[in-house]
């Protein structure tokens, strides 16, 4: 019987986990403290503690304890990469000494859990956004901001030729832009003039990919775990792909409250300067402008599709429908970019 389980759903999951861990070489596993951390329609995340080892001879020093995370893919159709790709990516990143949670187990078909999942080590800490909101970040904000810009530069500096095959879909910037813009213009969907104009301009001005790199794709404060040791750990790699490093910066710059990296830790200009210092490369402002507008359109696509779970907005569940209302805000911001483009051409 598992300890600290609340409700039959957790009990059932605990039993399934125990069985699955036993099947995968963990001797006499004992799961305890199972609790849901986050959940949605595409995936959920659970924390638990695993004790395993020689139960029969069992003394405290022969059994091991490990805090772990279970992440399940609930939706077959979503924007996330497959569990096996995520597993392979995390393993490679861990081997490359990037601060990520070490993955331990992956079941692309679900096995005993009946849905695809990844189990990884659990690093004790708080997501940075929550830590900042509670003023618990410890070190000075600017110092943390500089550290994160440096970490992002380290991700972009990874040698992609060493990246295992099969993690990322083949394709360039053009395919990545199409991936997010095409669904917004499908027949039967009424796209606003702003969205249509933004997509049209983006498609006509796709920048050349000069320096392909690993793009995290969602590098923002609530995807950074601030460990108890006071170090950042990068989470949530499901949107990672090969692309333009400036795309990654533009996405980070989309989030600008006092609890975000940009505006919370560093001003937009200081964030760029910190990245430039860390990477040794200047950030091309024309390219950044392009990717900033792209980020608005991409987020619009994510919000309107319930993170890729539905084809039509009319099929959105209540919480995704509430989120999709933010797309009007994004369109207003698109209007500023489009006005700047047209104003420059009119001058």
């Amino acid at each position, binding site marked *: 019987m598992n300890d600290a389980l609340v*409700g039959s*759903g957790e009990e059932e999951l605990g039993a399934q986990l125990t069985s699955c861990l036993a099947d995968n070489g963990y001797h006499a596993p004992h799961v305890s403290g199972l609790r*849901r951390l986050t*959940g949605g329609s595409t995936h*959920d995340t659970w924390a638990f503690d695993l004790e395993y080892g020689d139960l029969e001879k069992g003394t405290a020093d022969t059994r091991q304890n490990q805090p772990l995370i279970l992440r399940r893919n609930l939706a077959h159709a979503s924007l996330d990469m497959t569990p096996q790709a995520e597993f392979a990516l995390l393993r490679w990143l861990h081997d490359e000494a990037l601060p990520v949670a070490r993955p331990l187990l992956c079941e692309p078909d679900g096995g005993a859990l009946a849905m695809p999942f990844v189990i990884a080590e659990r690093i004790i800490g708080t997501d940075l956004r929550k830590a900042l909101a509670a003023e618990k970040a410890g070190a000075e904000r600017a110092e943390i901001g500089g550290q994160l810009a440096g970490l992002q530069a380290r991700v972009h500096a990874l040698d992609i030729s060493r990246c295992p095959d099969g993690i990322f879909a083949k394709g360039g910037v053009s395919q990545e832009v199409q991936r997010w813009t095409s669904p917004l213009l499908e027949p039967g969907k*009424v*796209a*606003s*003039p*702003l969205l*249509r*104009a933004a997509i*049209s*301009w983006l498609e006509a001005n796709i920048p050349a990919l000069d320096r392909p790199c690993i793009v995290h794709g969602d590098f923002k404060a609530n995807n950074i775990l601030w460990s108890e040791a006071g170090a950042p750990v990068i989470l949530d790699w499901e949107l990672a792909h090969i692309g333009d490093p400036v795309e990654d910066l533009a996405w980070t*710059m*989309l989030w*600008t*409250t006092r609890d975000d990296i*940009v*505006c919370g830790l560093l001003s*937009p*200009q200081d964030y*760029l300067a910190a990245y430039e210092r860390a990477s040794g490369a200047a950030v091309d*402002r*024309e390219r*950044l*402008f392009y990717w*900033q507008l792209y980020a*608005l359109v991409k987020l619009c696509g994510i*919000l309107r599709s319930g993170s890729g779970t539905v084809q039509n907005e009319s099929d959105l*569940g*209540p*919480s995704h*429908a*509430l*989120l999709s*209302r*933010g797309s*009007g*805000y*994004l*369109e*207003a*911001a*698109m*209007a*500023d*970019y*489009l*006005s*700047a*483009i*047209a*104003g*420059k*051409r*009119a*001058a």
Partner: protein
Amino acid sequence: MSPDALDMLVLIEKFLKSSVADQVPAALRSEVRAAAKSLGDAREQLDAAFPLLMRECDELRDLVQSARDALGQSAAQVGNVGQPQSLSALKEQHMALQQDLGDLVLLLQQRGDGAGNAALVRIFTTLRKQAGSRFEWQSVFPPDTLVSDVLRGTWPNGNS
């Protein structure tokens, strides 16, 4: 007096919050709360919808006309100018005007001459204002700060 449609929204919102949310599995609880919040918001937004969409339709008609002028297209009736008799009819009219305007915006972007770009600036400015009138109806982003305003200082020279 019996509850009307708007009252019903409030009644159902209260029912979902007080009687349903705590009785459903954890995975569904946030969905029930989101549904309740949406109903509460809907009452306020339905109250404002008719005058808002009427005003926006007038503005969209003007923009369509100015876009046609900039493209040198001959004068034509812009959308259905009849008074819509229901919110659904008004919404349809609003969507049809947006569709027309979107088509013209793409033509103006392709043409790219001075007059066309000046028309585009006017169109985008009006559409930004229209989108801005709904900021309070979403809770995803801070309604008082637009990200483009925050990032304007990072734009290349000549774009800001």
